[in-house]
């Protein structure tokens, strides 16, 4: 349970949505280690078809389209251009693209729906992390003068953060294993998960270090995947669902880039985004946290002021499947699905970007 009477630092004035917007549908590809069979268009088409089909609409029912992807996964420029062929944007549509996780594409679409500039939006994200060497590719996210030339891999940077958390007395390696064990177990009930197993933490602790203090289980899998969400405002939200899942708050914040100028054990940008999104005004039942590394769940959980009664990552989270560029969007979809199924009334989803949780997004949702 969150503690509204004692929000974390960095809280900013809450801004309430002026126009109700709902998560009308959500679909994702089955997350796999490698889909070496399909191109991006072929991977996306069934996902988008499911997102439309599950609420019996077509592409003609949405008036805005926004996607999230990165050229560096495929190793060629303009990968989002070809992906548009999976939608069939004819007649021409209002359409946009962020070179970010599609959770930010969802944010852009939500802004337009808030304004009334659109009534319904298709949002999708996609990426095949298996094509290249993700440990080298993600090094290119770093300062191109001081950091990228050293090729620090994302696992090592996360390990620096994990060590800082351990040194601060706020976690142990056993905590990481416990999170991974819970993720694997929860993923057994997620048909789209990639890593699922009934395993106890003590067994995971026997694994060797990949980069100490992180063992294999504390790392995300390499995943090929895609996901889509349909957003609906006003009347359409009610037409497409008897019990719409409403977005009641949405915000995101970025921190500075230099790891050495940040306190890696906390996530003030998550706290600020959560406060702006109104998270601390009422308790939540479920949280889907985009924590690619086990220890990051602890940092985000604290930043979101989640109590022990909150169910965290019932989907298994990013440790069960981490399709780059859609993993954040999937957190929103999974949290919304818990509300739609009646398992939760109020839920929060979190997405992250950049090394060691540099940029964070928070989306709060509620049932009717």
């Amino acid at each position, binding site marked *: 349970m969150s503690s509204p009477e004692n929000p974390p630092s960095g809280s900013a004035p809450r801004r309430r949505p002026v126009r109700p917007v709902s998560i009308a549908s959500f679909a994702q590809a089955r997350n796999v280690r490698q889909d070496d*069979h399909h*191109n991006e268009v072929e991977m996306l*088409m069934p996902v988008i078809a499911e997102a439309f089909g599950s609420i019996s609409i077509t*592409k003609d029912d949405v008036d805005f389209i926004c996607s999230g992807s990165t050229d560096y996964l495929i190793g060629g420029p303009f990968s989002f251009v070809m992906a548009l062929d999976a939608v069939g944007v004819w007649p021409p549509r209002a359409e946009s693209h962020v070179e970010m996780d599609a959770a930010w594409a969802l944010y852009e679409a939500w802004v337009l729906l808030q304004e009334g500039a659109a009534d319904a939006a298709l949002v999708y994200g996609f990426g095949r992390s298996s094509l290249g060497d993700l440990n080298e590719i993600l090094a290119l996210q770093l300062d191109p003068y001081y950091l990228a030339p050293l090729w620090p891999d994302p696992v090592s940077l996360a390990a620096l953060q994990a060590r800082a958390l351990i040194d601060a007395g706020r976690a142990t390696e056993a905590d990481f294993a416990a999170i991974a064990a819970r993720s694997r177990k929860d993923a057994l009930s997620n048909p789209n998960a990639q890593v699922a197993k009934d395993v106890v933490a003590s067994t995971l602790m026997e694994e060797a270090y990949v980069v100490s203090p992180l063992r294999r289980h504390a790392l995300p899998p390499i995943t090929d995947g895609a996901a889509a969400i349909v957003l609906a405002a006003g009347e359409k939200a009610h037409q497409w669902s008897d019990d719409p899942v409403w977005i009641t708050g949405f915000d995101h914040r970025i921190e500075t880039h230099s790891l050495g100028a940040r306190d890696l054990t906390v996530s003030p940008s998550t706290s600020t985004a959560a406060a702006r999104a109104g998270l601390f005004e009422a308790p939540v039942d479920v949280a889907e946290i985009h924590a690619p590394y086990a220890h990051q769940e602890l940092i985000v959980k604290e930043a979101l002021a989640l109590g022990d009664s909150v169910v965290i990552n019932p989907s298994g989270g990013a440790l069960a499947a981490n399709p780059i560029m859609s993993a954040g969007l999937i957190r929103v979809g999974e949290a919304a699905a818990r509300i739609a199924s009646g398992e939760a009334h109020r839920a929060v989803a979190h997405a992250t970007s950049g090394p060691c949780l540099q940029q964070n997004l928070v989306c709060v949702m509620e049932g009717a």
Partner: protein
Amino acid sequence: MADEPGGPSTVTEDRGPVTTLATPIRLDFNFTPGVAQSRFLMGLADGKFMGQRCSVCSKVYVPSRGSCPTDGVPTIEDVELANVGTITTYCVVNVPFAGQSIEIPYICAQVLLDGANLSFMGLIQEVPTDQIRMGMRVEAVWVDREELSPSLASVRYFRPNGEADADYETFKEYL
């Protein structure tokens, strides 16, 4: 520089401040063109143009990238296309650029194969650059049978096939 004396501040002279930094980047990928494009490419290895028809709008795409770009549905019906087509438009390339493998000047044209609803860019040879025309009928010249591969390199070029030019009205909607 083996006899360079050691110790501090030995190389301060003759070198101005650092103004540039070389950061070469090399990344390797395992690429797949996907199911539909693989069919097109394997057709090329067989010496033929394989297109795909959209089940909604019936248009034939070559090469298909797996979907109908206007309907957003998979293209699954294979269609073998003719070896001949029409030049819809073209340009004459006079500029050298990185990766170029043909002697300039040469003609680059949009070729609409008979039976297809989409043109693609092809090299035109065996015609002087000042005699190229929109509407000219051309045929594909393939590499030798044993050199065929799943690549557009299997098509050496297109050349005039001697037929009368196509009427502008027949291809103007493909411009």
